[in-house]
């Protein structure tokens, strides 16, 4: 069949080319890749040592056991580390102007953009810099503010938590560092945009330190260059809040739908400090995130607003922990998730209260809206309370969109799709009502609206 011949040749050519690319030019997550990555960065010895240890630990570790409670609902057999490469320098910078979603109409105080773990933009207003605010790459900070970084880095992220955490620690690149000095109030939000190209890797670590009496708002989003993009994110977030500090941290995860996302995202909240953490997850093929907030000083407070929306065959697993380690603290976690197509979300929450954490007020809730027959939501709330004078409540609901609601809306001229979209957005409204940043509410509303499908 002569007509097929050119195609055959072309496909051969393409295959050869891609093999050559991976075998000769792109470093793997192995010893050669590790040496190449560390050779390319200049950093303090303590950090080099930390990486080295983490790399050795990663090599000694197995992938998580499927039988363990932590992974029993999340199947990672499709994940192959060998399909990804360690972060490499970009050959050409893709157009990213339209990718960021949280910046519309926002007067930013500074911004950092990374593409495949490479810093492509790093700005901070002169005014904030003059006040002593540091907002730069983690690698620069490790040199310029070595002791500050050393004191806080991995103070709550555990590099030995699992092999993903160890690999993150060993191969970390392109991370961001924010430091807000004592009593400095940063009014303008700071923006972090982490971007993945198709097939790229992101190992960024975000370290945020808010000193006593200081305040800041950080908008952090994770996007791929297109919604179908493959990629790997081995991530870490650490939010360290000293006494009486106030932080609003927003993270919007919209990786491409062939991307793997493994991360620990943790906060330490000091005495009288408040944290409002909005976390939205709509991207990736598979996500496994451990989110925790430790309330370590008296009267610390945190509010977590979680939004998950899954489609196709996505699997998003969020394990959250609100850990009361001091008395008189409040934690309020509300996660709302909608699932469509054959997707699945897992939410496993835990309120943990230490023996000394009397007068704890802990609230934990997960509501699910299952939009198709084949979708699934696992919701596992939990309590582990060792103090005797506490108020802890938890709950979870899982429901389907009610056909009677849809009929009612259609009787008012709404199409089925419009009705479904409205009901789904309404479902998330309770979360939006809690978010005080308009651009975040708008972006989340848009992101959710985009994703609602046509249902028959």
């Amino acid at each position: 069949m002569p007509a097929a011949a050119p195609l055959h040749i072309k496909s051969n050519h393409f295959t050869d080319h891609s093999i050559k690319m991976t075998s000769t030019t792109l470093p793997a997550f192995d010893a050669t890749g590790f040496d190449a990555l560390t050779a390319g960065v200049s950093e303090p010895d303590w950090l080099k040592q930390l990486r080295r240890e983490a790399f050795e630990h990663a090599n000694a570790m197995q992938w998580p056991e499927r039988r363990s409670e932590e992974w029993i609902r999340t199947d990672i057999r499709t994940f192959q580390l060998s399909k990804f490469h360690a972060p490499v320098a970009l050959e050409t910078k893709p157009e990213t102007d339209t990718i960021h979603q949280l910046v519309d109409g926002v007067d930013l105080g500074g911004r950092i953009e990374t593409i495949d773990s490479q810093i492509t933009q790093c700005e901070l207003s002169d005014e904030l810099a003059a006040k002593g605010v540091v907002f730069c790459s983690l690698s620069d900070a490790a040199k310029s503010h070595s002791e500050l970084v050393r004191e806080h880095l991995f103070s709550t992220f555990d590099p030995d938590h699992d092999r993903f955490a160890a690999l993150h620690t060993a191969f970390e690149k392109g991370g961001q560092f924010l430091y807000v000095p004592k009593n400095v109030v940063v009014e303008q939000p700071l923006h972090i945009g982490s971007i993945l190209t198709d097939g790229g890797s992101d190992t960024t670590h975000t370290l945020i330190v808010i000193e006593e009496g200081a305040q800041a708002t950080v908008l952090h989003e994770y996007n791929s260059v297109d919604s179908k993009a493959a990629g790997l994110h081995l991530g870490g977030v650490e939010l360290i809040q000293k006494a009486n500090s106030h932080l609003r941290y927003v993270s919007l995860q919209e990786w491409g739908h062939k991307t793997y996302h493994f991360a620990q995202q943790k906060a330490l909240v000091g005495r009288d400090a408040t944290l409002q953490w909005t976390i939205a997850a709509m991207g990736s093929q598979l996500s496994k995130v451990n989110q925790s907030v430790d309330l370590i000083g008296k009267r610390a407070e945190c509010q977590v607003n979680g939004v998950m929306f899954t489609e196709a065959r996505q699997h998003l697993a969020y394990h959250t922990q609100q850990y009361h380690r001091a008395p008189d603290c409040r934690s309020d976690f509300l996660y709302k998730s909608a699932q469509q197509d054959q997707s699945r979300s897992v939410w496993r929450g835990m309120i943990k209260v230490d023996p000394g954490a009397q007068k704890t007020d802990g609230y934990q809730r997960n509501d699910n809206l299952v939009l198709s027959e084949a979708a699934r939501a696992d919701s596992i709330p939990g309590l582990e309370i060792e103090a005797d004078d506490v108020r802890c409540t938890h709950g979870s609901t899982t429901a389907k969109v009610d056909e009677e609601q849809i009929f009612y809306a259609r009787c008012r001229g709404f199409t089925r799709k419009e009705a479904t979209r409205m009901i789904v957005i309404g479902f998330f409204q309770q979360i939006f009502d809690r978010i005080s940043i308009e651009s975040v509410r708008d972006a989340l509303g848009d992101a959710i609206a985009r994703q609602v499908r046509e249902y028959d």
Partner: protein
Amino acid sequence: MTHVLKIENLHVSVGDKPILRGVNLTINHGETHALMGPNGSGKSTLGLAIMGHPGYEITEGSISLDGEDVLEMEVNERARAGIFMAFQRPMAIPGVKMADFLRHASTNVRRPDRKEGEDLIPMREFRKELKDKMSHLQMDVEFARRYVNDGFSGGEMKRAEILQLAMLQPKFAILDETDSGLDADAVRLASESIADIGHQKMGLLIITHHDKLLEHNPPEFTHVMLGGRLVETGGKELAEELHQHGYERIRNAYPDAEAANQEMLAEEALA
């Protein structure tokens, strides 16, 4: 042109159970029809079948609006064509504000060709209209900020349905017990509001047990449904008779329909 809603020989089943067994009814724009009948006779079924509820299967007969086949229309197309029903038990839609819901609904109905995502009625214009209509209905503006029927009392739900009637200005409206569950004052207010908004301005099909509503909205026609059929049609004096004396005469006069009605009630009780 006078709009006409025409129902001919309508048979409707739920599952394999026949509920309506040949209903004929023609409503001209501007007319008020009362639909009365004992419980379980099929009154709400007629309303839901006209709107196109997916649980109600039309096994025979036709419904047309100005000659157009209503049965061929999607539920939302019927609404946009000008058919409205005030629900006996409207659904709550948590997280969706009444004002937003009504702005979408009003735009959809006023611009039937509107595609999703196209512009809505301008906010200022809509707000003004909504505010005017709400004050006319003696409703607190705060109501517009509440989520649709979410946590509403029975009376609030009925008033919200009347507000929707006022905003959507349909050609034909089916009011399914819009006066039930209300105290005397609320019934009077609802009756006056409906008279103000709809009487002689729409074709009204009023399903009711009360005489208050009909006092304010005197029907040109009263239909009595029994066992899924309209067994008798008269003027407003028929409604008055039924209010005073109940359905005893009707039940005795139409034993077949009464038997069907008892059967349907028994099945409803089992379900």
